[in-house]
């Protein structure tokens, strides 16, 4: 390897090495402190895999069983660690298989860098073997993307990619690199990107907005905080908790905000939205000041917009200016990073307790407990419920586990009943609702945080969308605990068919394979539970396992998730049955 020194204008010494583009890609990853990447090899990315082979002591490449699994694993990695997840794939189908994960990361603001190989630049546009316009295809679902056709452009492109992925409101980026650029030799040096002209990751907080927000909060009689993932992404948990406690304001969360404040905190009043808790939905339409922090008023949270908190003044703490007034008109917008803005507003906030107001939440919780929660987690009927499985996991993990869910009924039940004592513990596909997310995301999460207990909870439908990742669990010896709540239905769709389509169960019944045999086929310890009296022991055995463990729990077939805000209804029309 040839090493040379070039003097630049500032008389500083810049050391460069003559290496190939593909080696440069790996070296860039090392410079960005990447230790684990997820991917799948193929023709147009082979030079990079050849370098990964040489650098395997520095970067651990995880061979997933499908490129979609690579993106979800990278997402799980990012969500539990707060770092950028990395996925890598070849051109054509390898690249298009990344799209679902990229779209998921985009709508859930997950930092991810995807690297794809591309056909040699002289073949671009010629319909070459495994050529696809991945930059064009990924444009609407990436925060940024680009194509590199010269080796010399690789370091700057990847530096920019990592910077954009993790800064401001995080998101996925894609860098498509032609095979000739991977082969080409050039003088490599790496400089981290700290700035991109035209890009403002964190907008300025408008003068007076903190004061205006503080005034509204201090004068409010029935203030209500609703928070989202922004609190977690800006690592503002401490400042957030301090604000909640000092102000004494009840706080509800979006699905992605879960775990930023412990579920056992007295001022945590539960989940918002379609299958959220009764009190926070009902009282959204009774509060006088609504304080939204790092959330985006998704339609699953707001229900009918015209009847959402119309009585309230709205304060919106937000990093993305495009979210202000997008769905809900804001009275005071506090732009900026939540950690900074929440820290800054804290001294301006009066101590308060809002006891009578808080009591209203408690009263409505009692109603929900009697009508819904009691039957979900302490059922007396014969069939096992999803809720009692979650409760058992809570008890045995002491609320310390990271819960990774898929999409559907089990997801809503898990989010409603899981206990979270630690932040970054609820990893799920929120905005996109990607079935198949859970299992590969759990692998990524476990590898990023091996010291943590990671429990993947899926339904029998979504589980089978990425079931092949059991192979990754086996090969990587990832000690993921995999729970499948099997009701032999695509449960959420079936619930809607029951409620809104007169029980016409079109294509929602699943005839399932022997899940235990499949897990055992991958040499994963496995157990199936069908009776209540077997549940606690089975969960105990799973938790005690040092290796991966698969637990199938057969739950009642036609259980429904309540409460429910029917699609298009106001949050105050939330139904308990």
């Amino acid at each position, binding site marked *: 390897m040839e090493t040379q020194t070039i003097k630049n204008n500032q008389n500083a010494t810049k050391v460069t090495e003559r290496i190939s583009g593909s080696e440069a890609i790996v070296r860039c990853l090392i410079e960005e402190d990447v230790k684990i990447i997820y991917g799948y090899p193929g023709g147009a990315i082979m030079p990079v895999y050849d370098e990964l082979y040489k650098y395997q002591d520095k970067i651990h490449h995880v061979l997933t069983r499908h490129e979609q699994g690579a993106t979800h694993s990278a997402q799980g990695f990012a969500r539990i660690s707060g770092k950028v997840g990395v996925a890598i794939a070849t051109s054509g189908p390898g690249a298009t298989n990344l799209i679902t994960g990229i779209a998921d990361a985009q709508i859930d603001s997950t930092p991810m860098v995807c690297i794809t190989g591309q056909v040699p630049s002289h073949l671009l546009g010629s319909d070459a073997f495994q050529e696809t316009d991945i930059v*064009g295809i990924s444009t*609407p679902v990436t*925060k*940024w993307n680009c194509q590199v056709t010269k080796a010399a452009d690789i370091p700057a492109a990847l530096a920019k990619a990592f910077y954009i992925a993790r800064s401001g409101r995080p998101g996925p980026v894609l860098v498509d690199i032609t095979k000739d650029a991977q082969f080409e030799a050039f003088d490599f040096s790496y400089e981290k990107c700290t*700035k991109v002209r035209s*890009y403002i990751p964190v907008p300025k907080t408008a003068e007076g907005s903190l004061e205006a927000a503080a005034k509204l909060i201090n004068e409010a009689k029935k203030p209500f905080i609703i928070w989202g993932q922004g609190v977690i992404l800006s690592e503002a948990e401490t400042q957030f908790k301090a604000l909640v406690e000092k102000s004494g304001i009840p706080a509800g969360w979006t699905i992605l905000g879960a775990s930023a404040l412990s579920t056992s905190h007295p001022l945590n009043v539960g989940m918002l939205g379609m299958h959220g808790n009764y009190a926070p939905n009902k009282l959204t339409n009774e509060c006088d000041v609504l304080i939204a922090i790092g959330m985006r008023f998704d339609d699953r949270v707001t229900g009918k917009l015209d009847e959402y908190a119309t009585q309230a003044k709205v304060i919106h703490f937000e990093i993305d200016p495009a979210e202000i007034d*997008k769905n809900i008109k804001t009275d005071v917008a506090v732009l900026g990073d939540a950690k900074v803005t929440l820290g800054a507003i804290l001294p301006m906030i009066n101590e308060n307790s809002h006891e009578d107001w808080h009591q209203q939440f408690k009263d409505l919780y009692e109603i929900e407990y009697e009508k819904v929660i009691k039957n979900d987690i302490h059922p007396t009927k014969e069939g096992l419920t999803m809720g009692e499985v979650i409760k058992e996991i809570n008890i045995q993990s002491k609320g310390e586990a990271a819960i990774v869910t898929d999409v559907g009924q089990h997801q809503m039940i898990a989010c409603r009943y899981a206990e979270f004592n630690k932040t970054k513990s609820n990893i799920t596909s929120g905005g996109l609702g990607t079935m198949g997310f859970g299992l590969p995301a759990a692998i990524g999460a476990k590898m990023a945080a091996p010291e943590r207990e990671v429990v993947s909870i899926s339904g029998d439908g979504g589980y089978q969308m990425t079931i092949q990742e059991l192979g990754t669990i086996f090969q990587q010896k990832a000690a993921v605990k995999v729970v499948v709540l099997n009701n032999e239905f695509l449960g959420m769709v079936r619930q809607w068919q029951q409620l809104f389509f007169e029980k016409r169960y079109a294509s929602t019944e699943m005839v399932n394979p022997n899940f235990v045999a499949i897990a055992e086929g991958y040499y994963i310890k496995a157990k199936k539970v069908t009776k209540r009296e077997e549940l606690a022991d089975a969960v105990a055995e799973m938790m005690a396992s040092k290796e991966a463990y698969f637990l199938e729990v057969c739950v009642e077939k036609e259980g429904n998730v309540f409460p429910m805000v029917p699609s298009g209804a106001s949050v105050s029309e939330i139904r308990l049955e």
Partner: protein
Amino acid sequence: MSTERNLYTISVYTENNIGLLNRISAIFQRRHINIESLNISPSEIDGVAKFTIVVNMSEENVKKIIGQIEKQVEVIKAYYHDDEATIYQISGLFKIKSELLFEERQIQNIIKESNARIVTVNKDFFVLEKSGKKAELVELHQKLSAFGIMQYTRSGRIAVTKEEMKISTLLETYYN
């Protein structure tokens, strides 16, 4: 804010990058918004491109669109203006048989009255250029159609605003 639809000129200052047109047009496509006209050109600042996009939509929605455009990493700044706030033009080219120029006296009058300019003449055809408001181009097109037009094309709107667009200042803040 008005929910009434209106013509708005969106001006977007951007880096000059491959793929940015796709990224910006995707914002409109995703929301099922038709772009009435689109022009991309250099701007007053070296290396900064300017998109001029005309849309017919409510002010409330155009504001949201501006937010989505500005969110793109390589967009420096986006503005929207109604017709009152801009000075704007479009340009049209008409290719017409040369014989008509000499045989149809009326055509010469039309050219004079419309302030159109003859770009080139040869024995087969002549080319007429007219810049102005869309209505003027439409009117000229109608008049000439009676005689037969061999080719006709019209450009997207280009516009400058009456108010100042402080892009240079903005770029300095980006640098700092």
